[in-house]
């Protein structure tokens, strides 16, 4: 194996990320090449430093305070709904009856109001269409559109400035 190939893989080798066969090839090269050996030494100097770094402890009783906060949130959480979707949990008989009555009532009221439904359906359609236009606004822009540069900048920011 040549020096440039070894140097390319030295990072992974030092981190134990190479498979046995590849690691053996690197070791064979390191046994005869002083330059790559020194490169590895320099490399290990920095990784050893980082591995031995003492890191600060979290505040005392952190685990207990997280537990206390969790219990507090659980106590103050809104009660779970009684009605769940079929197949997930059995619901009390009262809740099932109440749900059936609500559905029947809804159907009845819907049937009564059905005559004037034209305008509502039309406006709903328009609303959906507006949502669709908004959703697709950025995704369907031509390649040279200036807004695409804005999107590219966001991507760049996410890649380079955030973790």
């Amino acid at each position: 194996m040549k020096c440039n190939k070894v140097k390319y893989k030295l990072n992974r080798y030092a981190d134990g990320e190479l498979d046995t066969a590849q690691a053996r090839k690197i070791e064979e090269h390191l046994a005869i090449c002083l330059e790559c050996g020194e490169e590895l030494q320099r490399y290990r100097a920095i990784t050893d430093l980082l591995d031995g770094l003492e890191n600060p402890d979290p505040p005392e009783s952190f685990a207990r305070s997280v537990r206390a906060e969790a219990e507090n949130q659980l106590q103050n959480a809104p009660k779970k709904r009684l009605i769940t979707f079929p197949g997930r949990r059995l619901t009390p008989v009262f809740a099932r009856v109440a749900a059936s009555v609500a559905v029947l009532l809804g159907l009845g009221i819907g049937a009564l109001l059905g005559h004037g439904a034209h305008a509502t359906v039309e406006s709903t359609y328009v609303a959906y269409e507006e949502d669709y236009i908004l959703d697709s606004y950025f995704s369907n822009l031509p390649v040279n559109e200036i807004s695409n540069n804005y999107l590219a900048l966001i991507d760049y920011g996410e890649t380079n400035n955030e973790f």
Partner: protein
Amino acid sequence: MRESDEWLMKKAGKGDMDAFEELVGRYQKGAFNVAFKMLSDEHLAADLAQEAFLRILDKAEKYQPTAKFSTYFYSVLRRICIDHYRKKKPDSRPDFQSNEAENDLPADILIRKERDKTIHEAIFTLPARQRMALTLKHMQQMSYAEIAEVMDCSTGAVDSLLIRARKKLKNKLKGKL
């Protein structure tokens, strides 16, 4: 017998708060330090670490151990840190104030502390993604594949981030240690 993280998580999902506290105990230092390295503020790091634990508890009931718990947890923590970062970019550097009481420490410990402080300061000058990769590698001893999962990138990208981070650190620390 030491129960696995995944098992503790399942128990926490069933309301076992002792299991949850055990899980927090296991990951508190890592969570705190990862958040601290990202946001360079100890109080904020503690808050966000707590938020990550509360969030996983909230999802614990539906938790499926398809991946290692550690990668799942650090992914959640990373997401929380990103959300915070987007709202308010952190001040560039943490303030490492020396503690008066530290002056009474033995010389070798003082030297070590001073050395660690220099290294930490150098780490904080790195770009956020390099800092994150470095922290997960050297603090959490994660493999490239695990880091890639947490950071939502390829193992090649992790390799590249670590190479650049270590190279920069080496240059920054030259002559200082």
